[in-house]
């Protein structure tokens, strides 16, 4: 049986490193996607997650609702990403943009196509607002429902739906034929 967040938090507070690691592992993807949504760069998103995880463990005693650890962790990640974003904007005059990463040489047409599609998607996502990116990544990539997104990102469900709708419209307009559509789950 899977341990609840509340029970893992209780054990981590008593110094159980395995419980702390299990908590971070459980929420890693969401934390990473939120950081990526905010910063648009994978290396920066990793750094922010690392800082936020450390801060979260240091302040675990401040988590008032251990059952909602995920929401609490994401708020730390978003703050850390926000601060990091300010720092990066001060350092650079170039607009913040999602980078496709290093493109692998086109050893096969299929791989080249996938790389191109990925690069196009990153660029299109880079033109959305940070909150739109977070919502569309959590909903369409992670499969979260609006209730979950609303709870974790501390926005209303209506706002989550609105951001998803706007994000999809913009992505579809930017991606054209690339936008492969699937039935919705909520």
């Amino acid at each position: 049986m899977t341990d609840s967040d509340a029970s893992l938090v209780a054990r981590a507070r008593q110094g159980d490193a395995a419980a702390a690691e299990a908590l971070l592992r459980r929420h890693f993807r969401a934390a990473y996607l939120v950081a990526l949504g905010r910063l648009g760069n994978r290396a920066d998103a990793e750094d922010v997650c690392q800082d936020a995880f450390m801060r979260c463990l240091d302040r675990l005693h401040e988590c008032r609702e251990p059952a909602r650890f995920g929401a609490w962790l994401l708020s730390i990640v978003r703050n850390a990403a926000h601060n990091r974003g300010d720092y990066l904007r001060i350092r650079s005059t170039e607009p913040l943009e999602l980078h496709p990463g290093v493109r692998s040489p086109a050893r096969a047409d299929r791989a080249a196509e996938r790389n191109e599609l990925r690069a196009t998607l990153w660029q299109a996502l880079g033109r959305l607002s940070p909150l739109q990116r977070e919502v569309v990544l959590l909903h369409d990539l992670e499969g979260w429902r609006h209730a979950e997104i609303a709870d974790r990102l501390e926005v209303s469900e209506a706002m989550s739906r609105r951001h998803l709708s706007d994000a999809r419209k913009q992505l579809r307009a930017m991606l054209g034929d690339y936008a492969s559509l699937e039935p919705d789950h909520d």
Partner: protein
Amino acid sequence: MTDYSRPPGRIDLRVLDEALDPSQADRVIHAALRRRAGHATPWLAAAAVLLLIGAGALLTAPRRAAPNEAAGLIRDWTVARHVPTNGELLAAFRGYQP
């Protein structure tokens, strides 16, 4: 008025997943845990040094001194990972005459 309850169809973002490094979670989580452990080390080292100094002073002190109070304080500091200020050290050892 826009009906947000029926958003445009879902966009397939799975190709982004292929770019995520499977070892990424391990790397980030272990680095955070290592860094956190590293943060705690200097505090523990400082506490250990204080404990040794305190214990040494107590062991070499004549019995007429009353070091119990200072020893208790040092123990409390160590447990709380508190590095005492000069003022706190002076206050703790006040009246202590080796």
